[in-house]
């Protein structure tokens, strides 16, 4: 007892809490290893094998090297395996939603933060435009499907107003399907982006704006010479995270076109393509190869994010 008491104060300083650090972060890393890392390696491994179900027959797994990748990039007779086309679709569908999303969000963020304009009811507007971000994308897509279907209210309205004689089949026309997907993605995300950019603008030193004002800068000049350059890091971050999100586009086009990406697979995204291999034929090989390609694209984009975030420090 005596001994212990003597030792205690000296020991207090040198107690190492390091093991607690490891203990506290252990659940995260164990879970990550089991549910993300191991499956990721398994996915990459699968991409070098022929392994699928054809009717009741199971083919493989047989090692085939890069055959799955070669197959992915070789157009087939039915025009179904065409990863370049689906990458193109994904990019087009993403751009169609993301460009208006970022432009309008930037505009709104400037409105909301402008002392000169002094917009009233900001909380209300923010609440309204952010709401779609929390809505179930698949249900939102289903809603648009019902609204624009042959018997839906949009067609009814067009006919009642005498604009159309018979219902327009919006889902058989490439441009309307794509536009609807872009519109939905825009609605789902522009409120979120507005709030992020607002935070960015409010983080800019107010003296900058005051100085610009005293020097007689117009609001256009202030925007292009002060706001935009100082906002660039956050803007880049927003664009690239939106791009990574865009690569994952699935729920909206999947439900809207019932997984077919119609018409003529013009709205089939990369993840829908991946899903089509997993759902029916359990084609782990091809699905694995698609995953690896998406992974590589994401990796390259992530490096851009990392650079844009660390450049400033």
């Amino acid at each position: 007892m005596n001994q212990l008491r003597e030792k205690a104060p000296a020991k207090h300083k040198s107690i190492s809490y390091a093991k607690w650090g490891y203990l506290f972060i252990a659940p995260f890393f164990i879970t990550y290893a089991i549910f993300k890392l191991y499956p990721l390696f398994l996915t990459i491994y699968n991409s070098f094998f022929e392994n699928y179900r054809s009717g009741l027959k199971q083919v493989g797994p047989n090692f085939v090297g890069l055959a799955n990748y070669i197959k992915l990039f070789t157009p087939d007779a039915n025009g179904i395996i065409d990863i370049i086309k689906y990458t193109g679709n994904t990019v087009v569908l993403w751009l169609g939603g993301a460009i208006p999303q970022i432009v309008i969000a930037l505009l709104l963020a400037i409105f909301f933060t402008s002392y000169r304009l002094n917009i009233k009811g900001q909380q209300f507007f923010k609440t309204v435009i952010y709401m779609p971000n929390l809505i179930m994308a698949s249900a939102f897509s289903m809603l648009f499907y019902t609204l624009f279907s042959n018997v839906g209210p949009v067609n009814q309205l067009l006919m009642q107003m005498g604009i159309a004689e018979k219902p327009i089949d919006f889902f058989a026309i490439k441009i309307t399907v794509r536009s609807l997907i872009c519109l939905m993605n825009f609605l789902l995300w522009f409120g979120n982006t507005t709030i992020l950019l607002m935070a960015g603008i409010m983080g800019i030193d107010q003296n900058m704006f005051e100085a610009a004002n005293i020097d007689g800068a117009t609001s256009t000049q202030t925007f292009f010479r002060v706001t935009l350059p100082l906002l660039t890091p956050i803007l880049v971050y927003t664009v690239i995270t939106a791009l990574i999100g865009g690569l994952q586009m699935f729920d909206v086009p999947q439900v809207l076109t019932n997984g077919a990406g119609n018409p003529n697979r013009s709205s089939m995204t990369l993840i829908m393509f991946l899903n089509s291999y997993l759902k029916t034929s359990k084609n782990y090989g091809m699905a694995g190869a698609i995953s690896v390609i998406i992974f590589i694209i994401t990796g390259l984009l992530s490096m851009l994010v990392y650079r844009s975030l660390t450049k400033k420090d």
Partner: protein
Amino acid sequence: MNRLSDENLRARRQLKLSRFVVYLILIFLSVLSLFSFYMLIVNASRSNADLQGGFRLLPSNYFFKNLKNAWTDASINVPRGMLNSFIIAASTAVLATYFSALTAYGIHAYDFKLKKLAFTFIMAVMVIPNQVSAVGFYQMCVKLGWTNNYLPLILPGIAAPIVFFYMKQYMESVLPMEIVDAARVDGSGEFRTFNTIILPMLKPALAVQLIFTFVESWNNYFMPALLLDKAEMKTVPLMIAQLRSADYSKFDMGKVYMFILLAILPVVVVYIFLSKSIIKGVTAGSVKG
């Protein structure tokens, strides 16, 4: 003097005009955001026959009849789907929030050799989409007999890099280490300190993340669609997709609109009450300029 006030007047008029245009834009975007939901509510209140009859902008009186029909539908069991979704989303939210706080605290409060590496790793994997490892994940679940099981949908929540990052940011701004030292002097164990002293201090962050992770899981479509195919196991998004793939022309449309409304309603109700803190939560952890 006269010229100056003239200019002043012009500037004021211009400000008025630009303010008018800005409000017009804001109102237009608000209407655009809300209109589809308004139509959803209107159409969910109309009978099938009425809906076939034509377009209408005002609600009707069939709302509760549709609600009853949708709620008791034989092929799409909405209450069961909502219960399933709730079980998964609530468990995921609790696990993701608690363990992200625990992980963030581990890195925030302790010094250890691999600390920097661990942090860099989590930041690096933050952007990897879940779908990229779906093939291996699905294969693993099949092997373990984990299809039609909620565990593979819930447990991965323990490793949620984005929630971790939010918690870490929050701790950096509000958590003084002196409190931890004081607790140590008082003889509180490390784990107890975290649960009884640290967690209560994180309440605002925990609340925001509980909501976000719940909503994300509630809306999740891709993974449950791969893993669940038994009717009684299905979650709400799967039922929505089922609605889409069924022969649509034979459906009672009033009921279809009601299904969609039920799918999004819980989140909207929560949002109406907590919108202020939710919107604040969007920015707090996400941007580091």
